[in-house]
């Protein structure tokens, strides 16, 4: 179970105008602007739930994921995941979670993917038998086969994403965070990834938290949506709550963003 209560997080961002002179000026006196990335965020997610976490760019989605996964410490508020405070109990916490950042790779660039997997086996101290059966299952479901023997740098984006997802699940985590897992994928890869996530949730009861801009992802995978804008939770409900009959899902969400002025 994941609970977040009144979590706040703000950053200082240096601001300056364009131009060389401005850059020189900024070297000596810099103006900072305080950005409230998260402003009193609270929600609860039960075990085995699949939740779509949506919001426009810069709304605070990644910050939330980073706090939940223990990378960032919030300024105030509490967060408890299966009884653990992520940023205080880092090592015990990260054993139980898997995180996929769509925009960043966790595979070693120059060696075959399977070498990266073997290293992960040692990092997580996964027992040989568990590793074998997980690898077999993931290879089968994500259709990795031959991909495992190619270096990550030679894979296409879609192929790499499938490997990334497999890498995050080798240690059988109970919770899976997916940060834009379908970004830049073609239709076939997208469907394969969605299909896999759904199966993973059904067969292993993995709790899935998914951020995305692709509303079809949400439609295909989750019932529950949490909408965040300017650091505040604006809505927590199901896809049917917002759906309007004559509009497509993309139009609905655009309408929603506009109505909240985010």
């Amino acid at each position, binding site marked *: 179970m994941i609970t977040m209560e009144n979590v706040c997080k703000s*950053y200082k961002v240096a601001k300056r105008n364009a131009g060389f002179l401005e850059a020189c000026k900024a070297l000596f006196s810099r103006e900072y602007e305080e950005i409230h990335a998260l402003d009193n965020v609270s929600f609860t997610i039960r075990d085995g739930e699949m939740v779509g976490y949506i919001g426009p760019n810069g709304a605070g989605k*990644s910050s939330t994921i*980073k706090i939940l*996964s*223990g*990378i*960032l*410490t919030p300024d105030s508020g509490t967060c408890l995941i299966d009884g653990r405070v992520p940023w205080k109990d*880092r*090592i*015990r916490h*990260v*054993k139980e*979670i898997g*995180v996929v*950042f769509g*925009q*960043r790779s*966790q595979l*070693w*660039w*120059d*060696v075959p993917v399977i*070498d*990266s997997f*073997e*290293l992960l086996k*040692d*990092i*997580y*101290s996964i027992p040989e038998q568990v590793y074998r059966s997980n690898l077999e299952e993931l290879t089968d479901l994500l259709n990795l086969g031959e991909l495992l023997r190619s*270096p990550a740098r030679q894979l296409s984006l879609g192929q790499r994403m499938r490997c990334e997802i497999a890498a995050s699940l080798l240690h059988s985590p109970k919770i899976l965070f997916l940060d834009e897992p379908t970004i830049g994928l073609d239709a076939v890869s997208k469907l394969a990834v969605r299909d896999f996530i759904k199966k993973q949730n059904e067969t292993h009861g993995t709790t899935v938290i998914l951020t995305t801009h692709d509303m079809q992802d949400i439609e295909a995978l989750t019932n529950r949506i949490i909408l965040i804008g300017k650091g505040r939770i604006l809505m927590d409900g199901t896809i049917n709550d917002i759906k309007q009959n004559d509009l497509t899902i993309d139009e609905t969400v655009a309408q929603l963003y506009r109505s909240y002025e985010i």
Partner: protein
Amino acid sequence: MLNKMIRAIKLYKHYISINIRSMMQYKASFFATVIGQFLVSFNVFLGIFVMFRRFNSVSGFTYSEVMLCYSIVLLEYTLAEMYARGFDTFSGMVRTGSFDRVLLRPRSEILQVLGNKFELTRIGRLMQAVVMFVYGITQSNVDWSVFRVITVVFMLIGGTMLFTGIFLIYAAICFFTLEGLEFMNILTNGAVEYGKYPISVYGKRMLQFTTFVIPYALVQYYPLMYILGRKSSPAYIFLPLLASLFLIPCYLLWRFGVRHYKSSGS
């Protein structure tokens, strides 16, 4: 505790192996860098050689004694750079946010950063240092008693730890500045340059600074004096190990930095 150590060493070996496999993908670049590393330090060696053709001694140290001193410093620095290169290139990790991944793994941050980059190309310089080392040992007229051999071993350990500590400070500062700070190179590359000659050559102030602030003299000047038979107190044998304590404040600074890590956007 012991079990944990064994697991850490096993993982570290795995990291080294994957680093080497990655490097072998680019064979030409690897061998070119190794040869380059060898030649650069060979140049320095030539410099000292030419100088001693004109002067017989520098502040009372002969050519072979200076060789012994320099080769030990170079060995320490090269060893530290080889395995602690991850700290040296750490600014990139912080700036791109790939340190996030380190925090997502259930292992010590330091072990992972070390494992992230093992710089095998430094083997070129290491070979150069070994050649000078052997020359220094055989030609310096030192009577190699057991205690003196132990002193050299302690020097190598203490010096490697000292350089590791400086790399660690360098990495810790990156948490706040996001960029590497070139001035820190004074403490690493600079130390190797200065380390060519026993530190007493540079005067009393320098000796004080390197005794109490950044303890280079503890791994270089003092034990060297013992080896060369100019000081006889057995306390000099252990001074290099004392220098390892320098790692403690470095580690605390690193911990402080980790807590201030802010990640990057997206």
